[in-house]
């Protein structure tokens, strides 16, 4: 899977780096001073590099835990995110990472302690309150777990810090490491889900939706909190049919009492990323869809987005409680809030 490993000189002897390198005995191991020398140069093509991404082992400096974007959350007041890894082993065509980074290489920061220290600081800042940390913003939280072992160490840390709430966002079925420990109430394993046909078309190299559902069911059975992430919701002629069927499949398989939260989000991408992505894949029908530019973002028209979110929200309410549903775009949050006000139901927690 990995043919090339770039290692920063500073971590060549780091125990985690050494162990990761050992997993790929046939890979060429190349040292560098800083990972940016490999990751950041201008003349790179993300699409070509996706054919053979390299692993870059680096040391993280500076801030490790950052405030989550406005509107990102699942009910908590204090929301942060961290990225122990940059880039994802899957190749989902709608992913913003391909427009954000020049390189498709996977960067793993091996000094995990820095991330735990950063989280501890935030927990201390918000004394007496829960603090949410989102992993899986710049990578899949679990997909490379057999190589990195990050989650295993994170769980041990979380056991000692119950006010730290963590969402691990994933499409991966690499859940064995989670079963080595008792379920933690301050962890949500959140799966990104799209209709099976959509996944087959756009989520290259990712486990099928069926496999993700099996993993979700197993996690729930073993007592873990799970999250359902219907994000991005993609528009197409049959979207109502596809999402209705997806919701039925998911809620048939995942017991209600294990579901921590459900999020909905329409496709959206910063304009500059969208421009990069369409340059990489000009022949991709997804990017020739009915989008418009609003507030430096490319998204569906307001009408289209409103229709999709309303429909999906109504469908979700047939399966789960309103206070578990969160939405991920400003427009959709307003919509959802208005709908709940009208229905006089329990308030939607705007993320």
């Amino acid at each position, binding site marked *: 899977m990995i043919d090339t490993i770039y290692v920063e000189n500073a971590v060549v002897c780091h125990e985690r780096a050494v162990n990761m390198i050992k997993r790929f005995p046939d890979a060429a191991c*190349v040292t560098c001073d800083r990972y940016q020398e490999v990751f950041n140069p201008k*003349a790179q*093509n993300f*699409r*070509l590099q996706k054919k053979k991404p390299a692993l870059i082992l680096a040391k993280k400096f500076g801030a490790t835990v950052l405030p989550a974007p406005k509107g990102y959350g699942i009910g908590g007041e204090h929301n942060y995110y961290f990225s122990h890894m940059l880039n994802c082993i899957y190749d989902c065509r709608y992913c913003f990472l391909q427009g954000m980074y020049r390189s498709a290489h996977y960067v793993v920061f091996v000094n995990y302690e820095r991330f735990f220290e950063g989280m501890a600081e935030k927990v201390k800042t918000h004394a007496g309150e829960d603090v949410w940390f989102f992993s899986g913003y710049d990578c899949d939280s679990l997909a490379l777990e057999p190589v990195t072992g990050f989650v295993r160490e994170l769980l041990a840390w979380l056991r000692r810090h119950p006010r730290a709430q963590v969402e691990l966002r994933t499409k991966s079925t*690499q859940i064995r490491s989670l079963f080595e420990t008792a379920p933690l109430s301050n962890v949500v394993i959140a799966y990104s889900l799209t209709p099976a046909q959509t996944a087959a*078309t756009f989520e290259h190299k990712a486990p*099928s939706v069926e496999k993700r559902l099996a993993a979700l069911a197993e996690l729930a059975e073993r007592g873990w909190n799970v999250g359902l992430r219907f994000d991005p919701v*993609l528009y197409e002629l049959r979207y109502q049919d596809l999402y209705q069927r997806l919701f039925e499949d998911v809620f048939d398989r995942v017991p209600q009492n294990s579901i921590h939260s459900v999020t909905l989000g329409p496709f959206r991408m910063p304009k500059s990323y969208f421009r990069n992505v369409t340059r990489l894949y000009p022949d991709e029908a997804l990017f*020739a869809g009915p989008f418009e530019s609003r507030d430096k973002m490319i998204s569906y028209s307001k009408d289209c987005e409103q229709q999709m979110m309303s429909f999906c929200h109504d469908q979700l309410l047939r399966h789960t409680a309103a206070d578990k549903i969160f939405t991920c775009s400003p427009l959709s949050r307003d919509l959802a809030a208005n709908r709940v006000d009208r229905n006089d139901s329990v308030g939607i927690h705007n993320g």
Partner: protein
Amino acid sequence: MTNLVVALQAEARPIIETLDLVQDRPAGIFPVYCNGDLSLVVSGIGRIHCAAAVTHLFHRTAQRVDQAWLNIGIAGHQQVPIGSVLLASRITEHASGRSWYPPYVLDVKLLRSPLVTVDKPERCYPDCCAYDMEAAGFYQIACRCSTAELVQSLKIISDNPGSDLDLAVDEISLLIADQMSAIESAVRQLSDLSHVVDTVRVPPDLSSLYLEQWHFTVSQRHRLATLLGRLKVRSGQLPNLPGTSECQDARGVLRWLESKLSALPVNLSVPQGKDAADRDEQQS
């Protein structure tokens, strides 16, 4: 277009013979040999010459960006046996200490090694690296002409500690000739990859018929190309041109195309085959 850059005529000879390259006339400041989409320039020794030769070849050929560039030549190595072939995994310019990292996307099973470009022949081989005199100059300038995945340096080991550095012309040619299959394989793969990028970068000309009938401003031309591209992707074919009575000016044409686009149903997902659950999944 695939561009090969070698330092010596002795290195070029077996490549020219095997790939049926013919010298391009009139001769410029560097000799250039071509055969169809394949070009080779002989730079002379040293990174400055090599960088200049890349520029020369770029301007001498199609001047198109994102073409494949391969530097081929002999190099010394501290440990790798003489006659072995390798791809540079890191190129370091000894004079400045700067390094570059050619992304590896080829499927050829070649040894890979760091490569240090020196200004004088290396006789001490201080590190476990290959040593040459051109790659750093080649890489810096070729990366201005192309994306880094398409810029590679392939070296055939000619000397180790204790070997004679003064090789005869025939000995150099023989070292290259013995590795022609590896060279051809790398050339073929780089060429295939460059086609992927080229197809993406240069969209088919869909606008010309419209430009003949109506006057478009520069920004309208961009909008026209975008709309036609989206229509082509979404429907697989373009609508017949509207009549001039239907669209009196460019603005009318753009409106007409927008209406065609918005009328198209959005069908994104392929029907799920029975093997969808077992499709090619990335393993970690």
